[in-house]
């Protein structure tokens, strides 16, 4: 942590702080005190402020939705560095969704943490692609009627190595997932969705405190295998949690190196 930047700019009670806690605990448990081999890349939004400037590591705070292309560039230029992308649903799952799917398709060697707060929090609580049906937002005053995207199921259907969803209330599972993605599954595309409803624009409109939301999330979070149909998770108000996928296929960097070798073995024409 960059202690001189504290206290954070987040709203009182914001769940982003819990994610910072999960990240720092993960590094503590992994015995990593110096994060010089880690690069954090984020886009635009509240959750994009988690690494920049609070975490003491190289961090790139980029354009709206473009965290993954920048992270891909960093990873290909410096494959020795571990690149972590942190972004929100309004960033990675909307304007940046195309980049997200293609990075997952390539099994790009990145850890992507998507903080799903259900709305565009920084701009005033507008409806986002993950807003559950019925939720009152700034742009849907009578409740959202659009079907939300099941981002984990989407990413799990690609070539990604690791996909998991937790709520911010399942702290230990979340922390262990991040730890696994940085130790046990160190290659390929690793994706963790964290359900952390915006305290200001979701909880406050529902007349609930941050503490009440945490209690509710604990009840709403149901293991994925216990949910027959994932698509219904938001409609019924239940949240499917757990690990959707955990593989250890070679990632893009390894495939790329193999490909370069193929070129080296050919005779050059020039």
């Amino acid at each position: 942590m960059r202690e001189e930047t504290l206290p954070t700019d987040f709203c009182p009670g914001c769940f982003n702080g819990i994610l910072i806690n999960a990240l720092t605990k993960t590094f503590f448990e992994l015995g990593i005190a110096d994060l010089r081999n880690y690069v954090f890349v984020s886009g635009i939004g509240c959750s994009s402020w988690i690494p920049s400037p609070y975490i003491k590591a190289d961090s790139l705070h980029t354009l709206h939705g473009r965290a993954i292309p920048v992270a891909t560039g960093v990873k290909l230029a410096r494959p020795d560095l571990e690149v972590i992308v942190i972004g929100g649903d309004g960033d990675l799952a909307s304007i940046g969704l195309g980049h997200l799917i293609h990075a997952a398709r390539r099994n790009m060697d990145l850890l992507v943490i998507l903080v799903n707060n259900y709305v565009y929090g920084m701009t005033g609580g507008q409806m986002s692609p993950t807003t559950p049906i019925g939720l009152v937002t700034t742009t849907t005053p009578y409740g959202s009627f659009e079907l939300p995207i099941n981002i984990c199921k989407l990413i799990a259907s690609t070539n990604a190595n690791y996909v998991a969803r937790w709520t911010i209330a399942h702290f230990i599972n979340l922390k262990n997932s991040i730890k696994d993605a940085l130790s046990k599954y160190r290659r390929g595309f690793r994706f963790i969705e964290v359900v952390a409803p915006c305290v200001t624009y979701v909880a406050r409109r529902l007349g609930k405190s941050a503490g009440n939301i945490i209690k509710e999330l604990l009840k709403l979070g149901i293991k994925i295998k216990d949910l027959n149909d994932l698509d219904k998770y938001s409609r019924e108000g239940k949240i499917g949690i757990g690990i959707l996928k955990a593989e250890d296929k070679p990632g893009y960097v390894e495939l790329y190196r193999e490909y370069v070798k193929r070129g080296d073995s050919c005779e050059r024409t020039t």
Partner: protein
Amino acid sequence: MTATSGPGFSLMQEGIGYAVMTETPLVIVNVMRVGPATGQATKPAQGDLMQSRWGRHGDQVIPVLAPESPQEAFELTVKAFAIAEELRVPVILLSDEIIAHMREVIELPNYESIKIPDRRKPMSIDETPFGSKDPRIAPPMPSLGEGYYVLVTGSTHNEWGYRDTRSFETHYKLLKRLWNKVWLNINRIFEYEAYHVDDADVGFVAFGSTARSVKMAVKILKEKGVKAGFVRLKTLWPLDLKPIRNLCGVCKVVIVPELSLGQLVLDVERANEGNAKVIRYGKIGGGELIYPRELVKIALEEVKS
């Protein structure tokens, strides 16, 4: 380095603005085609001049270079890289379809003789990655993964990279430095070619492929006994108005041919102190270029009247 044409260049504007703010060395080649929107693909135009200068939101200045031949495309690409690395700034190489599809013999220098300045890294952890005492010198650029813990952000930031989205002072200081970094180095960036500008009656100002027609037109006019000269801009931004101002001071008529409805002519009108009559000659679309005979005709009409 990246290369594009028309619509792709429009899509890149946000990223170029980010490169300005984060002081990222970058070379962008834009081969101008007919626009706006999809326009006419693979047909030449010069309508992206103002977009190259001002296409992003917010205040900024970035160098724009324009080659007139394949040989110069090579030379200016080397220069673009040198400026980009030295000043930590995106540089645009503004070509057009005629130059890009042209085949000419070019002479390449020895690879070893091409000098691109090394990217300067901080000497110590105390050197600021986004601030320098001398406004003409770009701050050193730390690498990732070397323990600098560099903060890169497109938001307004102080000399250490810490975001500051509130204070007037931080933003003014940052933007003024980014502005001065390029404008105070105008002598390093600005280049032009002038021909018979001291005693000309008819003058031309042009860049890129149009300048080739101008050269031919000037040659024909000389043969016909008309005193003609031209200024060809190799650097379009930042722009030194002096050579154009001098030309306008000497000539009775200054003709500005361009493959647009008039963009470079605005600079010529700005530089003209009332002495010369500035004539805009724009042609757009259909793959039509400006022929020397058209320019000769306009020049002869103007000289007679």
